């Protein structure tokens, strides 16, 4: 069982190496900052939304005419609950709004993402756990891997090892397995300690946390294997480390950022303001059209003992027709931006495969629910909620119920998270790609080591 001895030596060596301590300390400090800030970020959002909801209720109670028609026009706040792993993966959530208002005719687009109040912050990004694992730890992993074989060669132990009946493949497998184990254990321990020191994190879903942990381990193991590949491609640790750092800069820092540029190449973001201007003009035109229709009906005496809503806005057919026309106009105005968004999402998804870091950030945000997909779900569910709420109010009016006083009787909006299976299956291709990368790096390392110069 010589290869077990290699694993044991790897562990024994690692336990005494200052390098291990450095990795642990760096991971600990970064995780601690990430957890503390992640918890602060999420708790602040939760508190802010709770405060806004309380004010929404107060505003409802303060409004004078509390009838179904007024309720329809009251701006009900629909808050997006914090994503299950928002405290670990800030993702794109900072660029997105945390709530919408609804009223009778539209979802009032939610103002105020975190980006609006600190745009430079969005550009610089947050130091969340995903960044620590996705960008910082790979540097340590790739450097740990770069020492794997070249280090033994520099110390001369490689010759000593292979003066014994040890197979190259087995030895490399044992070394790689041992070092990966140690690295993941140290990083995991650091994360656990940071977790305890930070006083816990709001985590929405343990199953997703588990998936996130697995994804992270796979990703880091991949970087270690990439480092090992550098190590067997070089004869000296310094060259291996230089190549490893260059790969890290390229794949973690540069490529993910180039992706956005490449996606926009020949497909720049269209101007979004013309849509707003057109919509505003259309709103005026439709309001005047609706008023004219209602006026004509009134002149014919058709709205004599109609409900307040019908008296003001016409019967359901008119309202629906106007609403439909407005929706069509909005869709038409938004079409260029929507088309651009769709093509960008497609391209960004495809281009993400150019870098493991991009894949990881994307998959982690997907698992966390902070990648924009969940936001789209939220908007769709809010829209559906508004439709149901309006239908209920209209039914009340039709039954000639004059009062609608109880804010708490408004069916609360509860956001339904995508099922774990769905979330997971969305990220399965990326996970498979990361696994493929890991295997490719390992295979390449084995292939290269097969002809490695042991002298």
């Amino acid at each position: 069982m010589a290869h077990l001895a290699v694993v044991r030596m790897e562990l024994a060596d690692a336990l005494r190496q200052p390098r291990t301590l450095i990795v642990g300390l760096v991971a600990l400090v970064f995780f601690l900052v990430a957890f503390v800030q992640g918890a602060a970020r999420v708790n602040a959002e939760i508190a802010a939304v709770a405060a806004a909801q309380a004010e929404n209720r107060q505003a409802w109670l303060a409004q004078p005419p509390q009838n179904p028609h007024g309720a329809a026009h009251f701006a009900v706040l629909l808050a997006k609950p914090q994503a299950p792993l928002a405290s670990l993966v800030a993702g794109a959530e900072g660029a997105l709004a945390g709530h919408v208002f609804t009223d009778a005719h539209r979802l009032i687009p939610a103002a105020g993402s975190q980006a609006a109040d600190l745009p430079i912050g969005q550009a610089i990004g947050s130091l969340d756990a995903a960044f620590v694992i996705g960008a910082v730890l790979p540097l340590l992993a790739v450097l740990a891997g770069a020492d794997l074989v070249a280090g033994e060669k520099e110390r001369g132990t490689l010759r000593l090892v292979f003066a014994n009946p040890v197979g190259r493949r087995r030895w490399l497998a044992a070394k790689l397995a041992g070092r990966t184990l140690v690295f993941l254990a140290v990083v995991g321990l650091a994360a656990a300690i940071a977790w305890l020191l930070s006083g816990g994190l709001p985590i929405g879903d343990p199953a997703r946390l588990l998936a996130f942990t697995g994804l992270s381990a796979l990703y880091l193991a991949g970087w270690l294997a990439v480092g090992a590949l550098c190590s067997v491609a070089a004869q000296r640790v310094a060259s291996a480390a230089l190549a490893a750092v260059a790969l890290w800069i390229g794949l973690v820092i540069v490529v993910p950022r180039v992706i956005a540029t490449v996606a926009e190449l020949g497909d720049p973001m269209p101007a979004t303001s013309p849509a707003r201007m057109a919509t505003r003009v259309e709103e005026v035109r439709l309001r005047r059209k609706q008023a004219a229709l209602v006026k004509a009906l009134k002149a014919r005496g058709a709205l004599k003992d109609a409900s307040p809503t019908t008296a003001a806005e016409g019967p359901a057919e008119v309202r629906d027709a106007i609403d439909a026309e407005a929706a069509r106009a909005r869709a038409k105005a938004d079409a260029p931006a929507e088309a651009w968004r769709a093509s960008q999402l497609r391209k960004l998804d495809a281009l993400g495969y150019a870098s493991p870091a991009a894949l990881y950030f994307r998959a982690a945000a997907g698992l966390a629910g902070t990648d924009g997909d969940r936001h789209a779900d939220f908007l769709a569910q809010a829209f559906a909620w508004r439709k149901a709420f309006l239908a209920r109010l209209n039914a009340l009016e039709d039954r000639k119920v004059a009062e609608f006083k109880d804010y708490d009787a408004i069916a609360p909006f509860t956001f339904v998270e995508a099922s774990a299976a769905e979330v997971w299956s969305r990220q399965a291709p990326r996970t498979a790609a990361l696994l493929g990368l890991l295997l490719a790096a390992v295979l390449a390392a084995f292939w290269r080591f097969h002809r490695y110069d042991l002298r």
Partner: protein
Amino acid sequence: MPLPLALVIAHRQADTALAGRRGLLVIAFWTLLVALACWSGAVAAGGERAAYVAGEQAAEAAFADWRAAYESDRWLPVQLGAEHPIVMHLPPAPARALAAGAADAAGAWAQPAGYHVRELEGRKGELTPLGALFGALDPAGLVAVAGALLAIALGYDAVSGEKERGTLALHFANPIDRRTFLAGKLLGAFWATLVALWLPLGLGLLVLLATGAVPAGPGGLARTGAFAAVALAYLAFWSAAAVTASTLARSSAAAFVGLVGLWLVLAIAAPKVAVAHAASRHPVPAPAALAQALSGLREEANKQYRLRFDAFKAQHKAPPAGKDVQQMRLDYYAGYFAAIDRATAPHTAALAGRQGVLEAAAAFSPAFGFQLAAAELAGTDGARHRRFIAAADAYARELRLWPDRRAIAGVKGRPTWAELPRPGYREAASSALAPTFFRRLLWLFAACLTALAIAGLAFARYDLRLQGA
């Protein structure tokens, strides 16, 4: 004659750092990165400019359409203030290609309708959150992160490497004093950084200017030149830090590890921690809460207006009309605007507080200071956006007040586009950036000098003996 000797040592150091394949690889790699970053910056700048032009072109036509929606000249002033489709576009940043800064996150235009403009719209990040997830590549970010790491790679073994090679003792077997040697090492490291990192960057900047990606003219030239200067100071800091670490550490490997740690803290963590700290130290009221508060204030203002209206009616036995109602409305707006100012004061104060935290962080982290300086020079800093938002907010009020003032002045009919007041946003002159720019440059020099002082102190008692035995 210590200076010529220092130059000889500097030449050897630069030559060693850039010698052979390693130097060539570093230069080639860096040139590729600079090319990518400049290209990426140019693409972004082009997209921004095109969107601006398209938006401005659409604005006049949209106003004409809107005007046509009202068939007659029967025109209530309130309609212009409340329903106009006018959009104010943030002019393209003067040198967007240099630094993305806050550009993608802050938005590109504002609709000065409603009663209060809180933020800009058309945020790219909102449309494609994935793009926001990956971030943008720009020359500033590249220098701040990768440039720093490569400057480290060029100098981390300046002194410790001599010791490891056994050449340190050879130096000091000659009549060289320590200061001369250290000065030579530092000069050599600076020289290597200048040649390998700064020159390719300068070349990239020249290409940006030549292709018009950064519009030339005195503003563009001055901004690009200032960017090059601040980038040089920033890279020099990392060079100095590298040499310092190599005089402090026992081995080149230890120096490298320490430097990467410093880099992780100063270039990677500090900016992120700073922005997160700014956000949590100075929380802004939830936008929803502000919206609620404003609508509450409006209810209150409306109530006051109705009271005045009814009082007028009781007094004059007729509802107010003409100039009376117009003046009443102007008073209503004045009161409501004052209330808005009070309600939004905490928001404004929080934003100012955040800026303060960022300033403190910029003094601590050269990387962050450099990034702020770059964004300011590019015109993509948060402050420029705030100035524009303030102008849009003022314009929204102007559009509320203007129709009634116009009516009081006796002008009738639907207003034309040419007649409308223009938004009051003026781009700050490049020269206005000078004080901030020089302050940031001074901080970078201070950081450099600190590193040099530490290097001097450390090397004064450096153990010159050969290692091992």
